[in-house]
């Protein structure tokens, strides 16, 4: 492991200054991802800028007009234990409960969880990978059982086929959350809120980054809007084992029912794309319709619309459909379990 400098930042400005000026500096908070990447040599930072101590960014605050603002340095364990999160955003609470292990959740921050690197084993090992600066994505034609169904356009090796590993991101997407990004040199009043889905970008050969963040940009807050009264939420995650695994496929569903009618439905899929993948067509078809077996079948089919299996991940299509079906069952029929 290469020696590196370490700075415990005393202000966000100080951190941003180093991060935007020093090539090779990295933001360091919980470290659950960065330290493992560094130890494996996947990344070799020259300078770690530790923002863990910035207490100003570790909070949960009620927003005027409802909703919740989450400081990016809040740990997953803190979020998981919060009663408001449990009561009003159960999909988010559940997505955290099935993330990693208790030890990891004690350490990991919500901001870091969103900004983590893919878990792709080509990226994390000594294999061809666009994120390493290689010419080709090794997973596109390799062992891609854990890889994307959507959003990569072409499996020609020029596009990264990794999926975003975060569970909370999927729940936050279905909850239509926004992230606030602090840009170096800008006053906090000018910090903009971006829909969470837009935080992520698909890495390509020319732009091998996983988020839209520029050096020095820091996710400082996540805003979860108030959900419609009576909204029902669920987060379902399929794993290779019962705990401590990333999602093969996951589904976050947020539904608002008006009697038997689906007033609103939001479906976000995890483990299938470089970002939480919203099944927008399925959502549209659902909206305003009475729940029926035929409607459920249609939503299930549309959720998988456009899926492009890579070879070894064909199973994700039926898995996705099965999970969507179970999520719909959970949010539309309380009398039946998942």
């Amino acid at each position, binding site marked *: *492991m290469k020696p590196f400098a370490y700075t415990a930042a005393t202000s966000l400005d100080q951190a941003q200054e180093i991060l935007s000026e020093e090539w090779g500096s990295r933001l360091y908070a919980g470290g659950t991802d960065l330290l493992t990447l560094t130890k494996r040599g996947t990344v070799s930072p020259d300078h770690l800028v530790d923002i863990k101590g910035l207490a100003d960014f570790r909070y949960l605050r009620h927003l005027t007009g409802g909703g919740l603002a989450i400081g990016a340095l809040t740990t997953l364990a803190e979020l998981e234990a919060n009663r408001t999160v449990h009561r009003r955003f159960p999909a988010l609470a559940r997505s955290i409960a099935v993330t990693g292990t208790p030890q990891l959740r004690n350490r990991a921050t919500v901001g870091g969880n969103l900004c983590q690197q893919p*878990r792709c*084993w*080509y990226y*994390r*090992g*000594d*294999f*061809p990978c666009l994120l390493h600066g290689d010419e080709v994505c*090794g997973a596109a*034609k*390799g*062992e891609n*059982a854990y890889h994307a169904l959507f959003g990569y356009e072409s499996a020609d090796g020029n596009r990264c086929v990794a999926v975003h590993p975060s569970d909370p991101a999927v729940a936050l997407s279905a909850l239509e959350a926004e992230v606030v990004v602090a840009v170096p040199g800008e006053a906090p009043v000018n910090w903009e809120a971006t829909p969470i889905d837009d935080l992520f970008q698909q890495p390509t050969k020319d732009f091998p980054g996983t988020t839209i963040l520029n050096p020095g940009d820091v996710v400082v807050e996540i805003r979860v809007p108030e959900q419609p009264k009576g909204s029902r939420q669920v987060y379902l995650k*399929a794993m*290779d*084992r*019962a*705990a*401590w*695994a990333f999602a*093969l496929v996951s589904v976050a569903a947020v539904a608002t029912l008006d009697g038997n009618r689906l007033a609103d439905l939001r479906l976000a899929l995890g483990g299938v794309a470089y970002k939480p993948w919203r099944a927008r067509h399925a959502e549209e078809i659902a909206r305003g319709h009475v729940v029926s077996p035929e409607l459920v079948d249609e939503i299930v089919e549309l959720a998988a619309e456009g899926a492009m299996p890579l070879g*070894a*991940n*064909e*199973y994700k299509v*039926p*898995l996705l*459909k*099965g*999970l969507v*079906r*179970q999520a719909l069952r959970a949010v539309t029929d309380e009398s*039946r*379990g998942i």
Partner: protein
Amino acid sequence: MPELRKTVVEIEGRLHEEYVVVDGEDLPAWPEDRVLSRVGQPLPRVDARAKVTGTARFTHDIQLPGMLHARILRSPHPHARLRRIDVSGALAVPGVLAVLTHENVPELGWPGRPLFDTVLRYQGAEVAAVVAVDEAAATDALDKISVEYEPLPFVVDLEAAVEPDAPRVYPEGNVSADEASVYVRGDTDQGFAEADVVVEANFRTAAQLHNCFETHGSVCSWDGGRLTVWDSTQHVFGVRKTLAQAFGLPMHDVRVIKQFMGGGFGSKGGTGRYTVIAALLARQTGRPVKLLLDRREENLATGHRHNTLQYIKLGARSDGTLTAIYHQVFAGVGAWGWVAPVGGPARELYRCPNVKTEEYAVCLNLGPDSAFRAPGYVEGTVALEGAMDDLAVALGMDPIELRLRNYADTNQPRNLPYSGKGLREAYRIGAELMGWHLRETTGYLPRKRTILATLGGGGNHSPEGEQPPAGPGGVEDLVCWPGTQPEDLPPHRRRGLGMASQIWGGGGGPPAHAEVRVNPDATVTVATGTQDIGTGTRTVLAQVAAEELSIPVEHVRVLLGDTEAGPYGPISAGSLTVASVGPAVRAAAADARRQLVELAASLLDAKVEELILKDGRVEVAGSPERGIALRELTARLGNFMVTGHGSRGPNPEDVAVHTFGAQFAEVEVDLETGAVEVTRIVAVHDSGRIINPLTTSSQVEGGVIQGLGFALSEERAVDPQTGRVLSADLENYRIPTALDVPIIDHVMVPGADLAANNLGAKGVGEPPIIPTAAAVANAVYDALGIRPTDLPLTRPRVLAAIKRLEEAAQAVEAGAESGKEQAGEGGTR
């Protein structure tokens, strides 16, 4: 008096006949009705406190003054020729003292392959070793070694490697028909001709990686011409022998120590190349050297359970009597290695006059394999017991009834009766505990299933240029309608029950020796050269000595894990420690007891025959007032230490000693998501007399959990394009977590195996892993109506099976609509 005897010893499923020295006549086993007060007690481990407080020192904990650290540079390529190596950059790193490569490695009497080869046949093969003042410097220096490799064509896929035009690991080819292990009993052609029903199936099992908590590693230190090695090994005496040979040392100048072990599971049976490298670097630098492998190296280069491709064919009469078994196995052994006895269950488990098994080693450009807890039998049981359930379906018989119909009372390959076989009892107890009868009445699958369709399956595989004697080009799978399901289940979930049988050795044998030293205060030291690889050997041996000497277990201290602590102890493998070392300890304790009684006789002025040793006193039977406390007796002797010697007697010649068992699994399969949830395992095993039910229960649970990993999630993944291992870490190689462990109910069949040895005890380390995966796969078969053929049962495989099921159902529906009744007759093909 020591005496030379010839005996048959079984290790890891293979028989060996050898000469052994035994020390006098063996004792008879404690009879079945003998009330034992130390043996049979569920005592916590004697070293539990040391382990939980951290005072137990593992190899990783060894720190010596002036100790250096070494790291190994390993090949990044699955197959390459080493063209050029330049270590000057590494030597320039501050703190680096030496670098070893094939160019400067000294000549050794090492019997293994070259420590550093110029043709590298797997990712992880040793290229160079660096020794430095600390681990960071050694690690940094690895990057500074400049190597020019010429990549060579490679093969990492088992099915690809058996093809004639596959890239070759060795010029001779990847499969050697000459070196195949072939077993024939009777005439299988005749047997299949006599069969009313024939079933056949292909199975694939994945390479399982040991992932011991404690990685492989050694600390080596020279003191003049003497070498001391702290090693993570299952066999201190084996390592001593090899190192003496490698360095041309007298045996008494090599000392090997293994006090505490973080797991071995078969991967630490030999002498590690890293051990020899560490010893060389220590000699060269004149300082102690620590060389520990990291998790990645562990998963690339220290062994694995070979993956298999199996074809099995069973023939039976309509009453279920087996007429023939044919089992063909291709095992991916890696760059070199051995085929474990995958055909063992087929040869031994059922009574059948006509059996043929063939086991082929297939070389691959992957790390060499090694033993892994019940090597071969785990894989072979999946195939045999899966095919038996197919046969049960085809015959419309209950799976247990079919197994009982073919119950073997003798070891057929050796033509000897079993010394004890509690399998029938295991079936009975397990069936009752699991509620097996539910399978036939409400809820579970009906006894006779409707065979819905047959589907084309995978191809058959044969070694180069040779057609296997039996087996068609493709195998068809049965698809059955599942029966009624329990009412408490939602429609998208299916529940299933399955079971599988276990046969294994575990009888142990000589040579194994022990000393029992009685101190002047009547405390006792047991000294033996075995090692405790984490199974509780210290505790169990203390119980045996305490029983024989009728003293409290706390008064016994067991010295082991050190070639200088006691006489020879065998490798801790093959479930043989209790059955080999235990009897030697009892014999040594009996020898000490005899001497104590003789000494007491002269003090008490009594005849030896009149005296008994009971509850820490020697007294005249019937006149307890004429007695002396052991402590008083030993105190009278001054500083004399009574020393008893004992050895394991030869194995019985007229019986075969084996362990048996059966496991039952209850699973739920989610038809929508392909999730397989094992809700309960019932494990019933017969290992003779149980010395310590608590350590036994740890073994059974550990075996079941490791078996569940093999069944459900553990699989080495290799990138087909680069030939490199993708799953060389604990994130991507998925061992079960605590949340994956179901309810495990376990029972040991009561009774002692009096013919086995003087304890009546047999091993329990390996048996519990053997039937778990097979039972789970059979339960999934029961739940789905389609037999899983490929393990582990990950989502892709289960969802593919569900898809085939749905397609078959649609085909039948379509057939029914067009007026053709297809469903109906269950039966044969």
